[in-house]
């Protein structure tokens, strides 16, 4: 590239803006961590910035000991695991079949999938359909409706369409049918794309808020995002910024809220390196083929 005169005004401006962007993207996360690990006295005095003061795990003990949060966490994990498995089964098999010209009714089904990208029944008819199918307030209302995302299917279909035909041909010579070829040859060599799409589905279920709000009615079935919303957005106590725990210790509401948020994004942060790598790839495939 071209060498620039580095110390000019634009260089300063650009770096100022970029560093400002890093700061506003990172600060909330760091501040939340700091507050949630700080002793409550410093939080009440507004003294916590980017590192914890008077390190303590009390807040997390309180948050993780909360039965509602614990149940919600368990529910979310069940929904994510089951939902992702079902979605991958449905999407992978359909994407493979539809990538072949031989697939009976393939053209019609492709068009049917395309239509769903542009038009949907909307909130109320979907809600009524779930009711009519007797899925309301069951786990299936969470894991089934999202099992086929048109976007994910198209990304996968375009991947399979470029799959080297020689490999499939060799399988056919060995006497495998389409199912055998998919299972023994194609799937083991397509783990990257399956992982990518799996992450897409998993993160979507982990983060979904409105679907469970719409299709579930019992506290005991609510996933984390709904409980999180209740903790963070609605004040736990009506007029105060603090609550008093059973031990008589005063705990700032902010500490509880921040700790709950942290607990809910830790799994996302843990898989973040994978997310970043694969998602960027997925976005690129989608944008070229879509």
């Amino acid at each position, binding site marked *: 590239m071209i060498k620039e005169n580095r110390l000019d005004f634009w260089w300063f401006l650009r770096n100022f803006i970029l560093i400002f962007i890093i700061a506003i993207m990172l600060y909330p996360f760091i501040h939340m961590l700091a507050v949630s690990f700080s002793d409550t006295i410093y939080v009440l005095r507004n003294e916590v910035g980017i590192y914890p003061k008077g390190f303590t795990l009390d807040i997390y003990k309180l948050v993780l000991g909360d039965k509602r949060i614990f149940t919600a966490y368990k529910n979310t994990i069940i929904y994510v695991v089951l939902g992702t498995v079902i979605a991958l089964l449905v999407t992978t098999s359909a994407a493979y079949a539809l990538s072949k010209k031989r697939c009976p009714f393939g053209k019609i089904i492709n068009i049917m999938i395309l239509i769903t990208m542009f038009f949907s029944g909307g909130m*109320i008819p979907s809600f009524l359909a779930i009711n009519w199918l007797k899925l309301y307030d069951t786990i299936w209302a969470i894991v089934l409706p999202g099992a*086929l995302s048109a976007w994910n299917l198209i990304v996968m279909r375009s991947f399979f369409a470029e799959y080297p035909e020689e490999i499939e041909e060799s399988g056919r010579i060995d006497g495998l049918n389409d199912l055998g070829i998919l299972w023994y040859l194609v799937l083991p060599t397509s783990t990257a794309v399956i992982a990518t799409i799996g992450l897409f589905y998993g993160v979507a279920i982990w983060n979904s*808020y409105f679907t469970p709000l719409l299709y579930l009615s019992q506290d005991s079935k609510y996933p984390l995002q709904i409980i999180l919303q209740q903790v963070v957005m609605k004040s736990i106590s009506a007029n105060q910024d603090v609550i008093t725990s059973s031990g008589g210790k005063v705990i700032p509401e902010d500490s509880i*809220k921040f700790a709950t948020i942290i607990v809910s994004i830790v799994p996302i942060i843990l898989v973040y390196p994978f997310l*970043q790598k694969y998602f960027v790839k997925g976005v690129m495939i989608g944008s070229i083929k879509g």
Partner: protein
Amino acid sequence: MKFQKSIKRLADGKYLFMLVIPAVICLLLFSYLPMWGVLIAFKEYSPFKGFADSPWVGLKHFINFFNDPFSYKYIRNTLLLSVYSLAWGFPAPIIFALMLNEVSNVRYKKLVQTVSYMPHFYSTVVVVGLFTMFLSPTSGEVGKLMAMMGFEKIYFLADARYFRSIYIASEIWQSLGWGAIIYLAALTNIDPQLYEAAVIDGAGRFKRMLYITLPCLMPTIIVLLLLRLGQVMNVGFERAFLFQTPSNYETSQIIQTYVYERGIRSNNFSYATAVGLFNSVINLVLLLLANTLSKKFNQASLW
């Protein structure tokens, strides 16, 4: 003959067909059943009578919607939110990508990118929660900072005037880095020789940006812009819904939150479906229009 051919085709592809059946069932139950259910917009649906026995009422619900003076406010809110979000949110990732592209230090560039993607993976609840807390005039960081600088207390979330700004700020905060990916990819595809030639011709940084970088980015920008225009009525419902408080209804009540309120909260199923249908039909028309335009500009369709 033709019949025999299709039988043979079916027999040949029977395993492929088996593979696609679960997806077809999903499509029929969760996409096409609701699409058919949209018909209740033209009926007086009652859960006790059921779908088939509810009487047809024609366009009654649509007429009611257009006769309600509040409807125009909701349509206006939806459009304004969307247009402002487009005006601020669309250029932001482009500018960000252009700045990032000028960075020559690879590790620094990577750091900025990695950090800027992160909020994309936070849920809407987390983002809305963060904004609510940080903007709180009593305990939030932004509130404290403003107090320090001598500003008056502002109740951002309780004030209808700030709803759109907060909505858009949170949207940009969440999607800035992610939105830049596509532009960054397009930027790396520009032939460096173009720049070298321009330097020899004496073009400065701005001339190079104006005459090389922007024209090379244009196709990407146009496609993405048209795609956004086709979604004008499709505002991020979850975000608006979560930022909504009784005190900011004036600006935060958009068509989709209105559908939720009338349909789910007041069980006014048919009316709410009609309002939702109005919204999605406009969306569909805009999207088809956008695609036609895109074909004209780029000889490439969005799909």
